[in-house]
Structure formats: C-alpha cells, structure tokens
C-alpha cells in the first residue's frame, strides 16, 4: 500500500536531501528545479514503482501563477494516485520535461505547451498539437479572448 501523502513527503525528503516538498490539499508541491529528481525517485524506488503517468495538465491562476499537475499511478504495484504539482510564474513558464522518464507524457506535454504556453525543456518534439502551426496565443489561458465569430471580416477574400 502507498503511504499517506505526509509519509510520502518525509520518505522522499529522506531519499533526496536538499529537495523541498510541501503537502497542499491532496497534492505534493515540488519546486520546478526538482521535478526530474522527484519523478525519477518515484519511478525507480521499489516501494513506490510509479511507472505510469496517467494525467498531466496545467491550471492557470491569473495574474501571476501557473500550475502543472501530474497524476502518477503504478501499474506494477497497482497503487496510486500520487498528485504532484509544480508552481510556475505565469509569464514564460518553463519546467523540465518528464517525457524522457515516461513516454506517456509526450502528447500531454505537447497539449499543455499548445493550450497553456508552458515550455518543457528536454521534450523531444515540442510542437503545437491541437491548434495549427502559426496560431497565436494559448486558448486555455483564462485571459484568452476568442475571436468574434460575428464580426465582419476586415477585407474580402482576394
């Protein structure tokens, strides 16, 4: 069985000295610089065995905060979830990609990059996935203004 979130925090801090972790609600908040270390530890430590990133997404908190959320499970040990959170600045959010650890994050990180504008360093193929190339802006951000479908076109088609 997976230990409680508080026990997990203590265990992880024992394994990774120098990493600061905070329990907030039902999630474990990690600093952006420690994401890779914590994820590798959760995956490689025998008793956690988090081999499966089920869900990866972001939450936008204007005016200054962006959060990336990871829901991790273990397929081998059939336990989970562990919810990890990373808090980032809203202007130019950058975090390390977990795709080298779990391939399952590849498309989900591309989606977050596309819709929220979070840059994942170390991602093998970071491009827009749902919107087209050349699209400006990030539609899931809270301050995104959709184009007015009823407005007349500025100029007729050539």
């Amino acid at each position: 069985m997976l230990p409680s979130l508080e026990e997990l925090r203590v265990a992880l801090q024992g394994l990774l000295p120098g990493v600061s972790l905070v329990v907030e609600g039902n999630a474990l908040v990690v600093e952006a610089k420690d994401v890779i270390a914590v994820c590798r530890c959760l995956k490689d430590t025998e008793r956690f065995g988090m081999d499966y990133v089920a869900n990866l997404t972001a939450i936008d908190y204007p005016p200054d905060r962006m959060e990336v959320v990871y829901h991790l499970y273990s397929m081998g040990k059939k336990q989970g979830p562990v919810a990890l959170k990373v808090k980032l600045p809203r202007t130019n959010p950058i975090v390390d990609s977990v795709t080298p650890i779990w391939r399952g994050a590849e498309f989900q990180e591309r989606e977050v990059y596309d819709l929220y504008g979070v840059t994942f360093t170390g991602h093998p193929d970071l491009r827009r996935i749902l919107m087209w190339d050349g699209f400006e802006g990030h539609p899931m951000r809270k301050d995104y203004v959709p184009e007015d479908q009823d407005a007349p076109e500025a100029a007729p088609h050539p």
Partner: protein
Amino acid sequence: MSLQAADAQLLEVSLGPQHPSTHGVFRMNVTLDGETIVKLKPVMGYLHRNHEQIGERISYIASFPFTDRLDYFCAMSNNFGLALAIEQLGGIPVSERGEYLRVIMAELTRLLNHTAVTGFLLNDMGAFGTPLLYAFREREKILDLFEAASGSRMMCNYVRPGGVRQDVPPEWLRQARQLVDGYPRFLDEFERLLTENEIIRQRTQRVGILPKELAVNAGVTGPLLRASGVNYDIRKVDGYSIYPRFGFKVPLGTVGDVYDRYYVRILEMRESITILQQALKDIPESSPAISPKGQALVRAPRTFRPPKGEAYGRIEAPKGELGFFLVSDGSPQPYRYHIRSPSFVNLTVLEDMCLGQKVADTIIILGSIDIVMGEVDR
C-alpha cells in the same frame, strides 16, 4: 538518415485527413522507403473545439451532453466518468438501483464498442461490408435499448451524479436480459468466421507488435495494453462503483500484435456478458434511480457549489482509461475541467508499432488501436 545515401529514394506521403481508413479527420505524415514505413508523425486537431474551455464556462451538469460527443460510440461510459469525478468532488451518494443501471449501461457500451471496432478492423483489412454489417446488426439492438432508456440512440446524456437521469421503462430489463442471453450466439458465429480464419491469421499475427515495457512506459491503457500482456484493468484496480461485487476475468494477450488485440476484445465481450448477467439478476426492484442529493443537483444545477478542491475520477472506458480532472473554486462552474482521453494517449505508440511495417499494415495497426477523433481532438 543513412538511407538517403543509398540509391533508395524516400517518399513523403500524407495519409489522410480525408481518408476512410483513418477513422475520422486524422493525418499521418509518413516517410516511405518503397512500401516500408521509416518515419510516421501523427497530425491531429482537425476536430478540436476546445471542449475544456466550454466546460469551464457552464455548470457541472451542463457538461454531460458535451461528453456524449467526445467518444461518440460510448456516450454512456463518458457520462459515467464525469459523474464519478463530480461525486468525488461534491460528496454525492449514489442510489443502489442507479449504480446497477450505470454498470449495465457501461457494459452494454463496451459490447457495442468492441463489436463495432472489430467490424471496422475487418473493413480496414479489405473484407468490405459483410463483417461490419454483421457487427452493426448487433450494435443496432443495443442502440434500441439505449433509445428506450434515454430517448436517444447515440447522444444518450443519461448518467447523472447520484444515479441516472430517469428509470428505465417497465419492459426494459426483460428486453436487456433477452439481448444479453442472445449475445453469445452472435459472438460464436462471429468467431467461427474470424478467429480460426487462415487469411486473418496471416494478415494480423506478428503485425504491429507492442512490447510490454513500452506499453507501460507510454501510458497505453485498455485492450491495447492488455493485449501486450499487462494485467491492468481499472475496474479491478480501483474497484469503482459496484464492480467488486461481480465476478469477471481480465483477458490478456501474449504477443501484443493486431491479432491479440482483436482476440482480447472478443474475450472482453464475453466477460462483459457475465457482468451483465449478474447485474441484471441482482438489480433491486423498488429503489429510486437517483439519490435525493443527486436529484436536487439535477433539478437546480446552478445551486451546486462544491467545496474548493480537486478531483480526478477515472473509469475503464472501452478504449482505455478515461479520466476527468475537476478543480472547484466554490462557484457553480468548474475552475478547471480536463479530460484525459484514452485515444489521445494511445496514439503515442503508433509510430513505434508502424516502423518497418508496410503501408497496408499501418492501416490495420491504426484500426487496432481503436481511436475516435471526437475524443482525440476534444
């Protein structure tokens, strides 16, 4: 790439988006060396309507009709997933009969999805028409049941937090029993045509092999994962709803090729039938279809203000893990509404399965993943 130095000329082809074998508006940018795939990049987003943003502007209940349009084959199980997440967020109890009706609907959905996808797979292999029509004949019978229960054949909008929207009509359970009891006969007939068929075996065995380790690492779920031999079924692992009450097995493949995926789906249908038989036998007669708290929520959706918090509800949908991630800020709309769709994540391994295979194999490998673009693009 070193191949370019040789006299072989590489050819770039765009498969789709307007092509019947891509199951919707989906494109594969492939690089070919003769007939062999050396590179494949999926391109999606043609059906993107930012469902998540719409969900953040409307009440929790108002999202149910939109979830029907995610995976439009499996409307009932999509509703079920969202209902689980809302119940987790708002602490809503579920009525006993509601639980049974949901499980019955979810398993009927699994039957119709696996039946249809097997028909489509055969269509992709070049068996035009006949297997697909056999499959659709059975699917129609299940759709008739859905219509009687919910008023709509495909866009059912039936499951609600706390139970289901309305009870089934009087004769419905008898008709459902009749259908379920007759289903093994159809499966036997279908299998007699397909399972031992020499042409199908030659066409599908050892094609598009997905190794176990890659399947786990790439977050693949559903029949695609189990065909590679990984025992992971969320109905067993999480034991959500009332699934722990039913006895059923989790079929596993050994090789992880297209044939295993076909056969795992056939075996899963047989397990769904045993679940359905147990559920239809045990369903309580006189009990409301929805709990009082759920009923209040359905009557006045804008009064439902769940406490601040987050919930991740997931189910074993026919295609894999379908997850709904909700964040509440105490207002009637969700602050964040995210869908983790199985088709989208399962496409990660498409290139790995196709490399070194022929173009015609790519089509059946894609067919064996079982994607629906409404869910990939959201």
